[in-house]
């Protein structure tokens, strides 16, 4: 299953690759990384219908996670992409907006990887 992680922090890549090293090794999950909303959109456009899950930070300079979310929901309606939003500010306002835009889930930083793994397992099943 292809997962695209979008975050402006570069070290997120190393973190995810280590946290999910067993899943990656076993070929269960495959990760791609984008460091801005714009980069994520470009990636999606270049490889349509490959990515099933997008994990995106909300607070990024330039195109925010919410902007990305609305673009994705408009451009990539089929196949349905699962969007999980992550934010450092666990405020209700962002949550409401994300849900209104069609996000499938909402996580707060620091990300609990055990919970994230569960959610991903659930999606896989």
């Amino acid at each position, binding site marked *: 299953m292809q997962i695209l992680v979008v975050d402006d922090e570069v070290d997120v890549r*190393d*973190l995810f690759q*280590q946290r999910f090293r067993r899943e990656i090794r076993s070929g269960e999950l495959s990760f791609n990384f984008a460091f801005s909303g714009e980069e994520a959109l470009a990636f999606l456009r270049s490889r349509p219908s490959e990515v099933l899950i997008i994990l995106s930070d909300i*607070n990024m*300079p330039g*195109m*925010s996670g919410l902007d990305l979310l609305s673009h994705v929901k408009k451009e990539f309606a089929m196949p349905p992409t699962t969007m999980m939003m992550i934010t*450092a500010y666990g405020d209700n*306002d962002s949550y409401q907006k994300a849900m209104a835009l069609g996000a499938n889930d909402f996580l707060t930083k*620091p990300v609990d990887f055990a919970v994230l793994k569960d959610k991903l397992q659930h999606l896989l099943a």
Partner: protein
Amino acid sequence: MAHSASYGDLFYLAPMAYGIGRGLSKFLELPKRLPRAHQLLNYVWVPAVPMVLIAGALGLKGDKLGDYYWVFVWLAIIATLAAVRDYRPARTLLLAVIPSALYKLLEVVQSASGLLMGRFDIAKDVSVSFVGIWLITFLFIARSQKKQLEKEQLLREEEARAKRAIEAQNAELERLVSERTVALTNQAEELRTALNELKTTQAQLIQSEKMASLGELTAGIAHEIQNPLNFVNNFADVSAELVTELEEEREKPARDVELEADLLADLKQNLLKISQHGGRAASIVRGMLEHSRTSTGERQPTDLNALADEYLRLAYHGLRAKDKSFNATLLPDFDPALPPVAVIGQDLGRVLLNLLTNAFYAVRQRQLRNEPGYAPTVSISTRKLGDEAELRVKDNGTGIPESAKAKIFQPFFTTKPTGEGTGLGLSLSYDIITQGHGGTLVVESEEGQGTEFIIRLPV
């Protein structure tokens, strides 16, 4: 009076002499000028008494007694006038009476010696008129001199009075001046106290402005610290997992050496990342502490690119924390050739924070107008420009109206709603750049298009 026939003349000559004496005494103001002469003149009649008594007793039938007495009176008058000759009317009177006295004397001497000449009689008539006219003329002159003197005296008294009045006024003025001086001294003291209080207040205001901007920063700082802390925690956790996995691998009979090497490499890399992110958090805390501290005023060679980057993030996340829906494109453009510049880091940081906060505020305001296609953008750039370092903070926000441009660097000028801005930010920034660093801070702005602040610092 000249033709006294017997001593009977003395009965009217003596009172007359007394009268003349009193008149003279009064005219010459003898009681105050020469009291002794005044007393003597009062007794001018006295010699007439023994003369009458002796003449009466001896039965003298002489017609000379009156003449002799009269000569005595003349002499007494002349003596008196001579005694007060310092007084000008007295001298004039002396001049007036001398011919009359001389004439009388001559007459007495002549009648005593018994000389009688017809010619002399004619001369005598002429002389009498002449002496009389002379006497009267000089009497008038003396009188007018006296009046003149009295007038002068009055004038002098007037002047003296005026002088006294002026002196009194001077004394009053002196008193007023000293009073006023005391009042002014007190006032100066009060002003000095007030000035000191103002200076204290100013220092407090500057400090509270810093604290206000620190308040704006708090959320940004929290976010900025939270991120590296999350990484530290995550990498520490995942490293513990890696170590567990490594241990498990070593227990296996068939060890995967390649996997072990990978795990070790990851571990090493993670430790490096933990250290990096820990350092990042520490530097943010350090920056925050520096920002809140009172300026030490010491210039240190500083990497302006790093400073600008740090404050760009702090300002952005500070605003983000307050206004979750806000988003802007940040365009940092740092000149890697920029050498370290000697600046007071926390002061310059405050300037950048202030300019950036304003920039974000401006783009936010414009964003709220819902112009189609508007992308809020804030850029910060550094550049080496000859022997100057240039920092530019640019936004495409609401811009500054012409009417406000001249005032933006004035203390307490703010366009923000009450309670949102202290109005000190730009004024303090201006002072920090121009006075604190010998640089320049200028603004270029077009209303509705954006604003650019340009800082130039000597390298």
